């Protein structure tokens, strides 16, 4: 229910989104442009943006469509990229008691890395207005993302190939990856995932799936070898 307090939290969330806007807009445009660039129709490209609504998964699906992977490989690989949302969902749910089902379903649909990270910081500050703050930042990010996607879908072809704008994808992922490498097990998972995707060429474009599984296996194995390197999951 939109009480005055909730309204205030909603607006605070929307404002908290502003520092994230440049990165989100740029990445959204690149995702839209990439989808349209591999020959998906504007409708399909935009469907990726609002149905999947997760940049890294959209990029993976786009690359696999372009590589001619079977449909089930696209769905499975794109979904594995998004498994992390289950962790976020479990953490967020603890702060969503007393909300309506509609509010929780909306929160689920809008859940992203950025909205989760900023909301978690507010949780650690001891604030109680978490659900509406989250909805404020997540919905604002959603609007930015869709506008950026549409811009990328319709204007992406105007950017000359010599600008190598596709490399923004790699740099965005580097920006997300670097802060994750807090201990040796996480670094080892990353290194083995990267090496797997370069050296292990599998049929049906299953490389990314293999990289995720091998990387996770290496990380867990090292965590057992060096229990000290375990960080709070």
């Amino acid at each position, binding site marked *: 229910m939109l009480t005055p307090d909730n309204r205030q939290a909603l607006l605070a969330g929307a404002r908290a989104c502003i520092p994230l806007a440049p990165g989100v807009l740029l990445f959204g445009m690149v995702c839209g442009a990439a989808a349209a660039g591999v020959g998906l129709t504007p409708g399909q490209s935009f469907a990726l943006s609002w149905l999947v609504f997760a940049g890294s998964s959209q990029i993976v699906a786009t690359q696999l469509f372009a590589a001619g992977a079977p449909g089930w490989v696209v769905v499975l690989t794109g979904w594995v990229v998004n498994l992390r*949302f289950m962790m976020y969902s479990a953490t967020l749910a603890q702060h969503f008691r007393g909300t309506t089902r509609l509010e929780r379903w909306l929160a689920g649909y809008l859940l992203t890395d950025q909205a989760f990270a900023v909301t978690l910081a507010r949780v650690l500050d001891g604030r109680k207005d978490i659900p509406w703050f989250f909805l404020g930042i997540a919905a604002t990010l959603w609007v930015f993302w869709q506008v950026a996607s549409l811009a990328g879908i319709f204007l992406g072809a105007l950017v000359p190939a010599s600008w190598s704008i596709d490399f923004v994808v*790699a740099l965005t992922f580097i920006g997300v990856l670097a802060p994750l490498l807090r201990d040796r097990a996480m670094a080892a998972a990353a290194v083995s995932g990267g090496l797997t995707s370069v050296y292990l060429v599998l049929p049906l474009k299953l490389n990314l799936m293999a990289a995720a599984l091998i990387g996770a296996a290496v990380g867990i194995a090292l965590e057992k070898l060096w229990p000290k390197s375990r960080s709070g999951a």
Partner: protein
Amino acid sequence: MAEIAIWGVIAALGLATFATRLSFLALLGEGELPLWLRRILHYVPPAILAAIIAPQVLAGAPGLAATLDGPRTLAALAGFAVALLTRSTFATIAVGMAVLWGLTLVQW
């Protein structure tokens, strides 16, 4: 892939993603993520992010004969350093692209 199959794949990926996001929110935190699953979920993001990044700094296709692309590798390393220092995705992109364009301009 046929037009209709592409739509099916996008819809299936969208639904699977939504179900994953909604999972514990729908249960209202009554459920707990088992430890083994939490372990796997903890290590999948770095593995898959690195797996997406790595082929993009190669000069050609992945495989045993893969070689690095000079400008892209250096741009990626510069971006990585900026990401560690600033934690800003935008600064990472800005510096990485500047390095890539600079090296391309001087005809690496």
